[in-house]
């Protein structure tokens, strides 16, 4: 993939790393979500302590044409606080489960952030001027005695140091009994869905005191519960269509025009089980941890414990492509069950659309290559993987401070599953299962990726020639 391949391969270089250097990780600093905004200028992270940190890309420096702008802290705010549910006598964690950006409509930026129970709409706005010259107030804010005012003046705006303010504009609460795992903004940019383990609700961004329940899989008798919702997403173009995935490895596509309660799916995507791989862990590893539509909406990608699958929305009975992320773990499932790693929820993402990927089209003259051509997902030992759908090549890279030099191409990594370990390979037993990359994000337009280790955020860029 990198280096010796054709000129079209991406060569990833370290760009930046954010976060503490300590090996001792403060629990509140554990990154729980990463998301670029629609332009890619802003990069948001959420953590277990309920904080949101937004990084902003510097404007490209004309003199430094070999690298794109760096990301620097733009705004930090406390999105959610820990709460106590008095009825159940349980704490509600402040951990940010997901962040989703709204497309920009005016000078301010808006994002939705959610913890287990409550979704909040945040407005992030800049202030770089302030009014001066009031008639009734002194500069320090004290009120002047009106009788001392002899002339009138018009207040004017004067520049000040840039201040970025985040304020909660809407709070969408009390609609979820179970833990929220997904939020997804509709293509109408007016509504969004929120999904918990058993239900999916539809909200209007302006209305906080009610939501519509559109999916409810809670059985009448909880004793019969065998399946939960694990992720949900709106179709990128059809505002009436959404999908949700389950712990049994199925994806259901629903059409909101069919009925108010979309309990009956329009399509059910499920791959039949491979009998030769059957074990007591088959169901657990088939549980889907993430689902993402391609930019066109023609395909969707799902992540289960060992693989990434690409589905064509027109074909329900099996995926069109399957990529093994870390097949060498299949023989270790019992240990991973014991230490709970088997329940880790890895996310996945598509490459950004457009420009950069057209480099591939020079070889493929007779048909357009799929523009959503690369998928990325994380693994253990701070490894992350990318699969090129066109060339069928894949690469494993590592997010580590040891590859710290900007513009140095990252060295591909390799895990030795069995047998003799070659030099530079890592054996499966040496993998650090506490170093997991669950969250990754790809810039919507450029070849810039953000990869979150436990408490650090790495930014990699392709080597521009």
């Amino acid at each position: 993939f990198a280096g010796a391949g054709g000129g079209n391969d991406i060569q990833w270089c370290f760009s930046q790393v954010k976060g503490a250097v300590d090996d001792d990780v403060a629990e509140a600093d554990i990154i729980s979500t990463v998301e670029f905004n629609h332009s890619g200028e802003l990069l948001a992270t959420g953590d277990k302590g309920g904080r949101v940190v937004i990084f902003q890309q510097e404007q490209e420096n004309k003199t430094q044409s070999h690298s794109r702008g760096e990301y620097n802290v733009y705004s930090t705010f406390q999105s959610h606080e820990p709460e106590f549910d008095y009825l159940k006598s349980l704490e509600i964690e402040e951990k940010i489960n997901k962040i989703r950006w709204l497309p920009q409509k005016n000078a301010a930026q808006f994002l939705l952030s959610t913890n287990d129970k409550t979704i909040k709409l945040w407005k992030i706005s800049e202030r770089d001027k302030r009014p001066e010259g009031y008639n009734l107030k002194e500069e320090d804010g004290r009120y002047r005695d009106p009788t001392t005012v002899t002339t009138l003046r018009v207040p004017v705006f004067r520049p000040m140091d840039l201040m970025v303010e985040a304020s909660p504009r809407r709070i969408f609460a009390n609609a979820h009994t179970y833990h929220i795992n997904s939020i997804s903004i509709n293509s109408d940019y007016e509504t969004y869905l929120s999904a918990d383990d058993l239900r999916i609700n539809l909200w209007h961004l302006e209305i906080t005191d009610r939501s519509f329940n559109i999916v409810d899989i809670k059985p009448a008798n909880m004793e019969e519960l065998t399946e939960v919702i694990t992720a949900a997403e709106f179709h990128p173009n059809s505002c009436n269509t959404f999908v949700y995935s389950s712990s049994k490895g199925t994806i259901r596509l629903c059409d909101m025009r069919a009925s108010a309660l979309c309990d009956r799916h329009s399509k059910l995507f499920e791959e039949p089980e491979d009998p030769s791989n059957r074990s007591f862990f088959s169901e657990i590893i088939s549980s889907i941890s993430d689902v993402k539509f391609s930019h066109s909406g023609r395909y969707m990608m799902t992540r289960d414990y060992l693989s990434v699958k690409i589905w064509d929305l027109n074909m329900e009975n099996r995926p069109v492509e399957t990529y093994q992320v870390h097949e060498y773990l299949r023989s270790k499932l019992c240990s991973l069950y014991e230490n709970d790693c088997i329940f880790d929820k890895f996310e996945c993402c598509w490459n950004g659309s457009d420009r950069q990927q057209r480099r591939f089209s020079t070889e493929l003259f007779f048909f357009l290559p799929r523009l959503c051509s690369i998928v990325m997902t994380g693994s253990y030992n701070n490894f992350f993987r990318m699969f090129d759908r066109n060339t069928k090549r894949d690469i494993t890279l590592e997010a580590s401070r040891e590859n710290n030099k900007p513009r140095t191409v990252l060295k591909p990594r390799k895990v030795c599953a069995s047998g003799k370990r070659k030099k530079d390979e890592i054996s499966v037993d040496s993998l650090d299962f506490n170093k997991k990359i669950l969250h990754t994000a790809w810039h919507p337009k450029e070849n810039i990726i953000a990869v979150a280790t436990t408490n650090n955020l790495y930014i990699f860029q392709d080597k521009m020639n």
Partner: protein
Amino acid sequence: MFVRGLKRKCFDGEEDIEGTLAGIKAIPSYNLQRQSLLDMSLVKLQLCHMLVEPNLCRSVLIANTVRQIQEEMTQDGTWQMINTQSTGQASLDRLVSTDILCRSSREQAEGKHVPGYSTFTKDFEGDQAQDNSETMSTASSVQAPRNLQSNVWEMENPQENKGNFQKSLDQIFETLENKSPNSVEELFSEVDNSYYDLDTMLTGMMSNTKMGHCDGLETFSSPSTTTSNSNCKSDLNELDHIVEILVES
């Protein structure tokens, strides 16, 4: 007896075991491994209840695994082993096999900090009032299986989803209770009584007494009959219905 040889792929380290004794010991070792997996799963379900709020997806997946094992054991006719061994003597074997089972990765895991599992057991030890639970640490320690299983039910926190959810496993065990009524009925006898206390539940005190369900063992005397179990269940349903209304309003 091995109808489906495909199951040979189930467990880690299995190849080692089969390699040494050309399949003769494969059958009992498979049962042993399966039993270990069952015990491990029950322990995990129990530990679920110590968390902030149990991760429902994880609980459902573990419960499904337990169900799957039990179905298979029922078909194989080995389910009775659980009840005959409930005195705790064969437990050591089963837990040792878990050790063998996961040995290579445990050694690695012990060297590194494995947060979830071992931390939970430490918390569990810290909170426990009961003797029989204090000894519970990693799977390699000796633990009477009856206490393990009974603790699953006695430790349960009567919240809507968890309470109902545990009942699903309740029922699985219930169908098998006919095979050995005595021990299993005793398992059920203490569980449901805690649900009667609607007041304490609504004032949120039940979570503080979730460890104290073991205290309940001392206050509740004789095991009840199966009829009282069904009464318990209907009351439980009413209670859950009430809680559901309160929570969702």
